[in-house]
């Protein structure tokens, strides 16, 4: 007993991120889960790259079909993420996407948020980052939303005097 506890403790202190748990699933299911088709993978990659902010969710931003998806959209709204920089994919309309995205991201739940092609997290993480201020920083650094002017006489003066070509 004591040795069991000790070994559990030892292996945990390193917090190995590689799977140590043995997966007990039917072989076919395990196989299906491990290998999403190359076609699915590249379709998802294309979706991930389609916009600076990409959300895989249940429902649509206007009509979310799940509280967690709704929360993520509301948080992005709070940060004034412009619609043209946000792409949302409804996994309920595409069962291949619904299953594929979990393996693609190695993340078991929906919604999933990507910023600039990088996986950020699900609802818990996005909410936590919103509360800590990290989300705002990430969105600003990714040029999704603009940084607040730090002071009047900042280096921005030169760039604002140049009118954006339209």
């Amino acid at each position, binding site marked *: 007993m004591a040795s069991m506890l000790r070994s559990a403790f030892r292996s945990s202190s390193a917090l190995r991120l590689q799977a*140590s748990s043995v997966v007990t699933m039917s072989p076919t299911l395990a196989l299906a889960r491990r290998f999403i088709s190359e076609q699915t993978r590249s379709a998802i990659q294309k979706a991930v790259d389609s916009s600076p902010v990409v959300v895989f969710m249940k429902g649509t931003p206007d009509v979310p079909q799940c509280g967690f998806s709704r929360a993520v959209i509301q948080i992005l709204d709070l940060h004034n993420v412009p619609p043209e920089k946000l792409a949302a994919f409804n996994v309920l309309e595409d069962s291949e996407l619904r299953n594929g995205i979990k393996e693609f991201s190695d993340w078991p739940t929906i919604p999933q948020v990507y910023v600039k092609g990088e996986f950020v*997290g699900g609802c818990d993480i996005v909410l936590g980052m919103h509360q800590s201020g990290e989300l705002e920083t990430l969105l600003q650094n990714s040029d999704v939303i603009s940084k607040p002017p730090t002071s009047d006489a900042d280096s921005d003066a030169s760039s604002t005097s140049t009118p954006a070509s339209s």
Partner: protein
Amino acid sequence: MPVSLDNLENAIRTSIPVAHLEIIDTSNGCGENYAIIVVSEAFEGKNTLARHRYINDLLKDEIAQMHAFSQKTFTPKQYDAFLAKQA
């Protein structure tokens, strides 16, 4: 198949040293929705994404059977700060 609270607790406690663990059944008893709070020194030096990935992996089989799963992960120090803020 519903996931039992004991399963979740065992899976976590046998893998990492746990300073505090809360498992909340948010499903009104059907066993498909859980929210957990894990406080562990094993999270020291790991960012939130890495911590969540670790827990997701630990509970892979259980989460696959759930409808909803939500988690909060803290180091003991962060948890103290969290409690202080709540008070």
